[in-house]
């Protein structure tokens, strides 16, 4: 049986964008799908070892506390935990956008170990072209 593939471009470091992107990709991988995440612009920041995204989008600040409480109480899994479980399937790939690395002055050494590769847009497009689900989350 050939299972579907999902490709997501993650362009934000806000938790209300990052968590859904990671949840979709990891849940897909756990269900047997292939999943590809391409982190670009502010989304790339979340791949830095020393960077902990902690904010929600400014329009939804009133829900920040509720989100923090849900994660702290373990009723909602943290995004890194969700990502790690998706990665364990071997079906979830994480790409860092090379152009953004230059723009934001991020070096390869600063990236988390779970980044599969630093790639350009042509590479990601080629990987994503046969996806059944393609999303841009920003």
């Amino acid at each position, binding site marked *: 049986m050939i299972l579907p593939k999902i490709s997501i471009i993650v362009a934000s470091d806000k938790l209300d964008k990052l968590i859904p992107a990671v*949840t979709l990709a*990891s*849940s897909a991988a*756990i*269900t047997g799908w292939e999943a590809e995440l391409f982190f670009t612009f502010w989304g790339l920041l979340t791949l830095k070892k020393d960077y902990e995204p902690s904010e929600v989008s400014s329009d939804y600040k009133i829900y920040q506390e509720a989100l923090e409480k849900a994660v702290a109480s373990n*009723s909602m*899994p943290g995004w890194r*935990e969700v990502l790690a*479980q998706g990665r364990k399937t071997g079906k979830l790939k994480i790409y860092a956008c090379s152009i953004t690395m230059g723009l934001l002055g991020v070096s390869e050494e600063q990236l988390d170990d779970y980044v599969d590769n630093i790639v350009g847009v042509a590479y990601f497009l080629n990987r994503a072209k046969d996806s059944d689900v393609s999303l841009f989350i920003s």
Partner: protein
Amino acid sequence: MKTDLVVDARFKSCPGPLLALAETVSKAKPGQIVKLLATDPGAPLDVKEWASGVGHKILKVEKTENTYEIFVEVSR
């Protein structure tokens, strides 16, 4: 129903129940029956899609009070 393993994912929101179930099933043996307890209303349909994707069998779904009991037979 005979149950070999129980995953208690009550009060965990999506994708918590699915992650917990997948983790336990990955370590289980073929033929074993895993019971998932979940309160997340999305869990029954999520588990159904997951099971059909990875090839495990849902034997039964029951609802008691606010808790779903989902029995999964590990196929591989």
